[in-house]
């Protein structure tokens, strides 16, 4: 290999300034890996031509798996042969992104042996993403990762690698053990993850509280968001301490409560819990004084997605409250019902949210055998969009 780097005057601009630069990182790798070197060359060419030089698509994979590797080919293979085939490998992330140093070293050692040496971690797909392997190296690198205890993540029309916040490991707000649910879902649905059989992708994202740090409501087909059913717990002494310390409780909390269900008289806080919509703002601002209630679980929302075929969509509430405890039987029954109805009737490349829009939420709720509930809303405090058919007498229709 010639150690000479390609000339990259345009990319060099991106190294200026105070911030870390991906170009600098790629140059470091380019000194020892020809794939990284040609990647820099191709990227510079893309900046010159103002167009990507990756071809559209490409099917590659591992026998016994229908997903987990994304084929990528360069249309400048003659000029940059080391990136002619530059496939992306998705490794299934661990719950809450906790790694031991040894685990990370193992991943990188195997990757140095077979791939470009470059990777990125936990973008919107969630997986540990390894960038740039040749077709011939896919089987051997997969075997090595399997031996080291790793497996591929999801892609294509399957259950995608779930993602979760690291809730209980780090956060007082967590209303259930997000990481345990993540692990259980992933292990229970290995076939759904590796062997695509759905109309399109299905993402499950899990957040421990309404802060929704994994943005599940906007990015997943099934969002599991921690919440509580009973009253917010209040420590009035701590409230007083906040006030004494100069916190503007009226301005920062009471007036910003979206449902205006709080009252503060300078020494005591009162909450009309029936009106509280569990937005968690007050708890975020006054964590020592306020905490979620004791009866904790999650709200399940369905149908969120980023824009591709239809526009972006936020998920709608389907189950206002469900206890989240192992073995998650009720949760799994719900998930499998969604899969049954959408799996059987969804059009090819139709996300479940688009499917619900097409058939109507009322029909969908009936198909998954749920009782309509006034809590099923698209936005907080919006009218429910369900019909009470039993109120319509036959004669009334004429």
């Amino acid at each position, binding site marked *: 290999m010639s150690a000479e780097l390609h000339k990259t005057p345009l990319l060099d601009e991106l190294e200026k300034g105070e911030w870390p630069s991906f170009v600098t990182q790629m140059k470091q790798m380019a000194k020892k890996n020809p794939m990284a070197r040609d990647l820099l060359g191709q990227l510079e060419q893309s900046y010159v031509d103002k167009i990507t030089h990756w071809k559209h698509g490409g099917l*590659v994979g591992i026998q016994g798996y229908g997903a987990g590797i994304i084929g990528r080919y360069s249309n400048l293979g003659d000029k940059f042969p080391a990136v002619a085939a530059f496939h992306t490998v998705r490794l299934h992330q661990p719950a809450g992104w906790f790694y031991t140093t040894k685990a990370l070293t193992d991943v990188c050692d195997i990757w140095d042996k077979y791939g470009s040496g470059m990777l990125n971690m936990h973008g919107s797909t969630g997986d540990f993403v390894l960038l740039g392997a040749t077709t011939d190296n896919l089987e051997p690198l997969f075997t090595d990762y399997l031996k080291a205890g790793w497996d591929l993540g999801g892609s*294509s*029309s399957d259950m995608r690698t779930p993602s979760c916040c690291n809730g209980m490991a780090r956060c007082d707000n967590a209303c259930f053990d997000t990481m345990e649910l993540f692990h259980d879902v992933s292990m229970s649905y290995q076939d759904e993850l590796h062997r695509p059989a759905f109309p399109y992708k299905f993402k499950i994202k899990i957040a421990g509280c309404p802060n929704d740090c994994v943005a599940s409501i906007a990015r997943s087909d099934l969002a599991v968001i921690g919440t509580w059913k009973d009253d917010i717990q209040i420590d009035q002494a701590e409230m007083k301490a906040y006030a004494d310390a100069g916190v503007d409780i009226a301005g920062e909390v009471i007036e910003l409560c979206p449902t205006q269900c709080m009252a503060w008289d300078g020494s005591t806080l009162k909450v009309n819990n029936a009106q509280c919509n569990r937005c968690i703002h007050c708890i975020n601002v006054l964590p020592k004084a306020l905490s979620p209630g004791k009866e904790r679980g999650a709200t399940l929302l369905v149908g969120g997605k980023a824009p591709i075929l239809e526009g972006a969509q936020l998920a709608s509430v389907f189950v206002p409250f469900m206890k989240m405890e192992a073995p998650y039987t009720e949760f799994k029954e719900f998930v499998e019902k969604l899969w049954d109805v959408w799996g059987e009737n969804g059009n090819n490349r139709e996300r479940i949210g688009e499917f619900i829009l097409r058939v109507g939420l009322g029909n969908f709720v009936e198909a998954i055998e749920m009782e309509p509930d006034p809590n099923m809303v698209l936005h907080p405090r919006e009218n429910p969009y369900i019909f009470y058919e039993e109120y319509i007498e036959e004669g009334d229709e004429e």
Partner: protein
Amino acid sequence: MAVLRETVRDCLRSKDYEQVLYLARRERRLVRTLVSLLYDGEPLVRWRAVTAVGRLAAAEPEKVRPLIRRFIWWMNNECGGIGWSSAPALAEIGRMAPELLRGAVRVVIHFRAERMILPGVFWACGRLAAAYPLEVREAVPELTGFLADEDAAIRGQAAWALGEIGDGRAREGLTSLLGDRELVLLYDGEELEMRETGKISAEALQKISADDHKQGRGTDLSTGSLGRIGGGGKKGEVGYVS
């Protein structure tokens, strides 16, 4: 769901397709399970799932119709899927319920865009020979070209398909493969077997001669002859070349 999967897997291992059809009438998850088994880690289960999809197409076409677009999408998918068994499953649908595949049969036969799934595409060409003789014949010149491919799985499956199609134009190419000792995993619709590419070619040549004999013809079979006269496969209509 895991229980159903294991039940179906056992049915496939013992070739109990009747039981699979019985389950299909009772279990709404059967179709999804079968589709998922098309990627199974056990090769024989994978291939027999292909056969089962065909049987299901004959017994309950409406259950299978929506799968056709999905299978085609998984042959072209750019979001990280690979339809290893898509072309074979489509072929079994076309073989067992020809009308279901009519609008898409050429998409399968002329698919060349992705090398990794080409062996399955060639297997599909062979399996579709009886149901769609004119259409598969359009692919003979290209299939013959792949007999010289560097990948044994591609050579072997192309040779097998050419035997099934029974077209004399493949003779020369097949003859040149007779000494090929590389092994290929081949599914005959029931069993999976490691076969030598040279032997597959020898059998293909025999099938071509037998077909010639049946048709009372000497050599060339390049005109529409297996039951349909005229029309159909226009020459030079070969689609996508990689």
